Structures are given as structure tokens and as C-alpha cells.
């Protein structure tokens, strides 16, 4: 263990010691006392003797008083010295503790950075010169720390065409500076930036890396450089491309035969020269209905893939939600009537307009109404309600308009159906999830409708909530801001 010297004590100015004080007795008084003593010894009976004795006693008393005063002063000085020494020791100890904490913090940071082996963590100075290079960077890019720190620029590991597509003129130094400026431009403007870049490894491979770029500041808040945290996405992106190709293939391979089925059905069913019997028409209507069901499934799969890939594109316009609700009721009317389910519509006569994608909002509403009808036994009821309300800063929705509130449309679809067990409600919006009540009651479906409805709602800046009690029914509520989606 390191024993520190007492720096404060050694720095203190020299103080006169009490012993030294005691030695400095005023010589005048001492001489006077000595003279009196001589008189007493030589002439003990003389009349002057009394006077001499008194002088001696006075001197002694005065000497004693002064000595006491000096002793007290000396003791006070000693106390001050001890206090200063003590404070010095405390300061030294605090300094040592702070130093230890700093060392421990640095060690923790280093160990954390070194423990990251699946992500590259690269730190640079403000000009891009590499200062930090963790084991993840070593593994990803194939060079040890010693070969890059303080000698290489981060732009050396980026595909140059991504940084200077226009091949700027000028010296190598200028080009490096321009490339680095291009690399950090978005992070400089927005505070941080995450996107895919192509890294070049030491053995010539090209990796697709999702890189988070953030500025690094020193203790004074000045920019000290940049951090680049990279995750190798090469395989993930390749898998996404494969999935896209698969979805595209499925789309083509399913839609094309469905085109044949539906097209030839239409030719047969609409042939005025050879009309069908009622029985034939009934059979072919069943074929047609199921072909459309397959078609919807293909559409739902494609739509889900688009959402997963972040490619849900909305085409915003002014949409009257009351019209959407009425259309959903119309679509479900035949099925509901066949099941003996009453569908009630309560919408404002004047309509309620939101900014959104009419096709997608219709799809969301259709999904909710279709689900409600499917899950409601005969004799039950489905109610579609639409009204305007206000959403406040804390998320609460009320009928009261305040300065901080946003106008929203509330579209609820309530049924008196089988309900959803409370333990399953959290998974309702997960792709392909089917509630146990759906399986138990053999309600058809694949579990994509609510996922799609939720995705559409979220894309419109809205919320989709569910309240349900098993055996009593379910209410889904769509909350959509009236100004919904901005124009693209």
C-alpha cells in the first residue's frame, strides 16, 4: 500500500516552539529580580531589605504572568498547527480517494469497452484519427489495436464511394478531411446518426455495418472527438433481401393462379348464353368466396412484410371516418345477418374528417368489424361508434378541449362476443397470434388482422386499445389525431 508523505506538514511555515517562548524571558525583569536578591543576601537586615524583597516578589509574579501568557499563546499556535496538519491529511486522503475513483472508473470503462466483442467501438479525435479501438473492432475489421490507434483514420475503413461519390479534387489530406466531414455530417447536424455504412476489412471483405455516430465531449463540454459504434448487419441485410425476394415470389406465384381462378369463374358465372342453375351458381359462389379469402391472406402477408421492412407507405388525404365506418358495416352486413348478429352504427351526421390513407383506414376498420362479427355468437350485437374527443399531454382522452389538447377521433368497435382472456390481451397484436377463445370456438383466421390494424393505426400517429372480458365481449378503440399523417 502506498503511504503518502505529509505534504501539508512539510509545507507549513516554521512556528516558534513553546520551549523557545519560555527561553525568551524579558531580561530587564530578570536583572531587576537578580539585583534585589543580591541585596537580600548581602544586607539582610538593612532597611532597604524590605523594598528589595518586594521587588523580587513583584518581578517573580510578573515573570510568571508573562510566562503563562506566552505559554497559552504557544499552546494556541500548537493547536492551529495540529489543525492545519489534520486538514492537510484530510485533503491528501480525499485526493487519494478521488484518484482511486478516477482510476476505477477508467478501468471500468476500459473493461466494458474491451468486453464488447460483437460490436466495434471506435473513438476518434475531432479530425477522425483513431484513439479507441476495442476488441470488437479488432474482430470485425481484422487489425489489432496497436496497428491503428494514433496512426489510422476511421475513413480508411469506409468504402470511399460512400463518402466522396463525386471524387473531390485536392490533396490526399483534403480528401481525407472531406470524407470524414461527410461521415459525421448528419451526426453533426442532428446530434447523432444511425445508418448502414460499408466497412472494408483488412482482408478485403465488405461488411454492411449499422453505425451509431455520436460526438464525444471533454470535461469542459468541448468536443473532443467522435464515437462510432458498429454492428455487423451483413447477414441480417442479406436475410432481409432474401425475405423480400421470397415475398415477391409468393406474391407472384399466388396472385397469378388466383387471377386464373377468379377470371374463369367470372366468365362462367356471367355467361348469359349458358346460364347456370341455382345449384351450380351456389357452388361456384363458394369457390369464389374462398378464392377471395386466399387473396386477402396473400394481401395480408404482403402487407405484414412491408410493415416489418419499414416500407409502409401511406397516401394521405382528407378522409371522412363516418363514411369508412358505414362502409365497414355494409361489408360485414351479409355475414352478420347470416350469423344472426345485429350491427349498430353510431356516427356523427356531419361526419368526422381525419388526415390519413383512406384505403388503409378502411382496411383497419374492416378488420375490427369483421373480427367482432366473427367472435360474436348469434343473437349478439356489434356496435360501431365514432365521435370526436381531446387527447391531453398526459395521454388521457376526454371530451374537454384544453390548450394543450389535440383533437382526436375515437372509433370503437364493441361486441357481445366470447371475449379475450386477460392473460392473452398483451399478445393480441403479435403476428400470427390467435387467442385461445378463437381456437376453442373454431373462429377462422391466421392472426394477422390485428397486427395490420395496429400497424396502420401507429402509422397514422394513433393508438389501438382493447378492453375485454371473457364471455362478455370486447371493445377495440382506435384513437386517431385529426391531423394524422403529414403529406409525404
Amino acid at each position, binding site marked *: 500500500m502506498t503511504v503518502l508523505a505529509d505534504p501539508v506538514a512539510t509545507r507549513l511555515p516554521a512556528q516558534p516552539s513553546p520551549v523557545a517562548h519560555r527561553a525568551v524571558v524579558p531580561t530587564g525583569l530578570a536583572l531587576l529580580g537578580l539585583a534585589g536578591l543580591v541585596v537580600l543576601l548581602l544586607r539582610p537586615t538593612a532597611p532597604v531589605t524590605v523594598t528589595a524583597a518586594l521587588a523580587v516578589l513583584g518581578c517573580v509574579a510578573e515573570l510568571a504572568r508573562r510566562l503563562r501568557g506566552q505559554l497559552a499563546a504557544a499552546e494556541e499556535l500548537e493547536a492551529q498547527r495540529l489543525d492545519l496538519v489534520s486538514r492537510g491529511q484530510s485533503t491528501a486522503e480525499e485526493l487519494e480517494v478521488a484518484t482511486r475513483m478516477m482510476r476505477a472508473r477508467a478501468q471500468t470503462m476500459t473493461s466494458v469497452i474491451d468486453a464488447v466483442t460483437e460490436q466495434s467501438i471506435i473513438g476518434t479525435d475531432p479530425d477522425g484519427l483513431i484513439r479507441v479501438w476495442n476488441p470488437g473492432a479488432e474482430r470485425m475489421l481484422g487489425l489489432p489495436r496497436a496497428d491503428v490507434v494514433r496512426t489510422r483514420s476511421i475513413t480508411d475503413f469506409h468504402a470511399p464511394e460512400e463518402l466522396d461519390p463525386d471524387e473531390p479534387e485536392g490533396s490526399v489530406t483534403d480528401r481525407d478531411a472531406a470524407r470524414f466531414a461527410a461521415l459525421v455530417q448528419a451526426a453533426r447536424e442532428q446530434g447523432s446518426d444511425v445508418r448502414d455504412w460499408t466497412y472494408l476489412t483488412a482482408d478485403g471483405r465488405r461488411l454492411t455495418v449499422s453505425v451509431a455516430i455520436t460526438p464525444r465531449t471533454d470535461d469542459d463540454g468541448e468536443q473532443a472527438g467522435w464515437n462510432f459504434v458498429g454492428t455487423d448487419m451483413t447477414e441480417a441485410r442479406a436475410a432481409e433481401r432474401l425475405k423480400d425476394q421470397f415475398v415477391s415470389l409468393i*406474391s407472384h406465384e399466388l396472385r397469378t393462379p388466383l387471377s*386464373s381462378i377468379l*377470371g*374463369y369463374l367470372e*366468365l362462367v358465372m356471367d355467361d348469359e348464353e349458358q346460364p347456370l342453375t341455382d345449384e351450380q351458381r351456389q357452388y361456384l359462389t363458394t369457390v369464389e368466396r374462398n378464392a377471395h379469402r386466399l*387473396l386477402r391472406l396473400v394481401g395480408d402477408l404482403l402487407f405484414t412484410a412491408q410493415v416489418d421492412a419499414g416500407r409502409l*407507405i401511406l*397516401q394521405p388525404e382528407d378522409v371522412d371516418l363516418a363514411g369508412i365506418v358505414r362502409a365497414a358495416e355494409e361489408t360485414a352486413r351479409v355475414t352478420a345477418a347470416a350469423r344472426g348478429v345485429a350491427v349498430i352504427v353510431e356516427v356523427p351526421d356531419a361526419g368526422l374528417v381525419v388526415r390519413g390513407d383512406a384505403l388503409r383506414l378502411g382496411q383497419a376498420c374492416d378488420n375490427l368489424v369483421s373480427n367482432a362479427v366473427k367472435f360474436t355468437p348469434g343473437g349478439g350485437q356489434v356496435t360501431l361508434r365514432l365521435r370526436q374527443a381531446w387527447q391531453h399531454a398526459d395521454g388521457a382522452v376526454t371530451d374537454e378541449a384544453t390548450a394543450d389538447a389535440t383533437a382526436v377521433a375515437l372509433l370503437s368497435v364493441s361486441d357481445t362476443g366470447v371475449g379475450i382472456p386477460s392473460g392473452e390481451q398483451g399478445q393480441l397484436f403479435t403476428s400470427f397470434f390467435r387467442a385461445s377463445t378463437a381456437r376453442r370456438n373454431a373462429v377462422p383466421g391466421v392472426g394477422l388482422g390485428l397486427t395490420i390494424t395496429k400497424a396502420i393505426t401507429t402509422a397514422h400517429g394513433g393508438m389501438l386499445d382493447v378492453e375485454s372480458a371473457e364471455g362478455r365481449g370486447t371493445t377495440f378503440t382506435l384513437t386517431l389525431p385529426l391531423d394524422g399523417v403529414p403529406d409525404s
Partner: protein
Amino acid sequence: MAAPARVLVADDEEDIRLLVTLAVRKAGCTVVAAVADGAQALAAARAERPDLVVLDVSMPEATGLEVCAALRADPDTAGCQVLLLSAGASPDDVARGLAAGADAYLPKPFTVAGLIDQVRRLVVAGSPA
């Protein structure tokens, strides 16, 4: 009475090719050729100079988009009407088709009635005033 419009049909799926042919005839037009790939479609278009070409987008040899662009680039065929059929139904798919020079784009599956309407509309649009 004007002669029926002359239509070229190109689709690699035999069933769809026949279905489109039937729909075109129901629209009152004559099918001058029904072919199964892009190269045949281009050759038939240059030979027959049809009023309307109904092209599937996804075909071997040359896609419907490539055939469409080639027809537009050739002064002999640049004036014919082009209707693209495709399983791709996204706004991007439609935009790509129209950018290639198509006059109309019909996603699969289409209804026969819808196809007949499109064929009639394009034939009228392409006929001399």
C-alpha cells in the same frame, strides 16, 4: 363500320394468356397474336403493328417493362397503346410501369369486366380522331 382494333397479348402463363385473349375478344377486338415471352412480344409487335399490346410484367427473355420501353423507343411501334398486367400491386410497381411508358396498369388478380373496360378505353384513346 370501323375494323375491330388489333391487339397483341403477351403472358408466360398459358391460363392467363387465354383468359386475356377471351376478355379482349369480348371487348370486340381481334387478337393478332398471343405470345409467351418478351422477345416474342417485341417481334410480334414490330411485325403486326397492333393498336394495343397487353403485356405481363414478369416474363422470360424480356420483362414487360423492357418490352414497353423498347416499343416506345421504336418509331414504328411508339404510337401503340400499352396495357401492363402484373402481380405487383404496390404504388411503386404502378409508378415503375407508367414510367416505362405504359398507358395503363392493371394489378392481378383483375376482374374480366375490369380488363374489358380497360381494353375498350385504350382502344378508343389510341384510335385516330
